């Protein structure tokens, strides 16, 4: 991806997720733009670039919210690696399987965070969190991410976001 695309993502990821996505909220559940973006970057670029992008976006999220510094950076970095390998070996942008894979990535991220909190702080109501928050959020994120992928899978949008060398590939 172009450097300016990454800069724009880092600059607006928090405001877009926190304010523009609020009207999309259904019963308090809203899609997670950060993991959807990292998944898309992974499919388009590869594991290394997606991992670094995931870490950078995660760090900005950690600083901008009240998370422990490095928590989202780690989970989004891992998601970037996973999506990068999927893009290289298994999936293409147009595959409908992206809904399932992206939802699984989102669910995994939620589970890792919950397990971490349970391990270090205890008393997390794991089952209720899974049913009422993590699963609906993962499905919603999967659908949103696939919609974004469809939108980006147009030549003019791609050329706006991607480096020329990657477009040739």
């Amino acid at each position, binding site marked *: 991806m172009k450097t300016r695309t990454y800069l724009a993502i880092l*600059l*607006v990821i*928090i*405001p*877009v*997720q*926190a*304010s*523009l996505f*609020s*009207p999309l*909220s259904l*019963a*308090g559940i*809203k899609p*997670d733009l*950060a*993991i959807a973006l990292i998944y898309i970057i992974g499919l388009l670029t590869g594991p*290394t670039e997606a*991992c*670094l992008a995931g*870490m950078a976006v995660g760090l*900005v*999220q*950690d*600083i*901008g*919210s*009240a*998370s*422990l*510094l*490095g*928590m*989202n*950076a*780690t*989970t989004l*970095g*891992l998601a970037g*690696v996973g999506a990068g390998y999927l893009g290289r070996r298994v999936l293409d942008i147009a595959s409908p399987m992206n809904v399932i894979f992206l939802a699984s990535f989102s669910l995994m*991220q*939620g589970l890792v*965070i*919950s397990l*971490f*909190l349970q391990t*270090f*702080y*205890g*008393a*997390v*109501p794991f089952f*209720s*969190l899974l049913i*009422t*928050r993590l699963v609906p*959020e993962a499905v919603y994120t999967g659908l949103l991410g696939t919609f974004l992928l469809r939108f980006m899978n147009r030549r003019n949008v791609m050329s706006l976001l991607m480096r020329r060398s990657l477009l040739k590939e």
Partner: protein
Amino acid sequence: MPGFIVRHAKLFILLALFLVMFWLVTFQVKAGRLTFMEGPVLAISGFFERVFTAPFRFVGSAANHYVFLVRTSRENDRLKQELDRLRLENSITNELLIENERLREVLGFAKLRPLSSVMAQVIAKDSSPSSRTMIVDHGTTHGIEKDMAVITAAGVVGKVQTSLPGTAKVLLLTDPGSTLAVRVQRNREEGLLEGKLDRCALKYVSYYADIQEGDLLVTSGLDGIYPKGLPVATVVKVSKHEATAFQTVIAKPAVGLSRLEEVLVLTK
């Protein structure tokens, strides 16, 4: 060996980065959260959030004030009735307050300080899956400072974590980093309420303490942030384990945190 490292340099760099991140997270579990670069990031995101939400707020306000006037008359009647009821309640409460002040004076207790507050609009919520925060459109210019209590008529919302001119970040009571001194309203049992993403958990409650589902938890005032007696959460699950000296109590916040639009920040 060096050839292997050079061939897989990218992989080793990524592994090293992950190790640094993991160390950073575990370090903060012991030492407390690092607040590196928080001010600049809040300033930039707060600016964009105000810009992004301005059209929605404008349209919402215009719709409420000029377009949806159909139910205004009915709403007016309902509000008049509500006002009469609240006036009556207020006069009774004032009587009780005067009596309370008089009795405090007789007993030699310190005088109650009146609360002052600033109303702020919520412009952004939940920017990360591992925390629960929101951004409001008022900050230091309106007298809002770090660690001030944030409430609504229904109860406690959280406390101010960072405040800048024109914007402030509020740590919701469901955030994993939030702790709050509370008391069970029914029997005055005390405990520490910790955020657990969507719910809260009451910690350090004795195994033998009488806590039941449906009990209301109110602020105890012991943390010096929240005034005493504000509703915080309702107990939804109590489980006792023979192996520990404490019981696990899960509570649901009294305020619907996902639907908040305006909040009060207690400035005194």
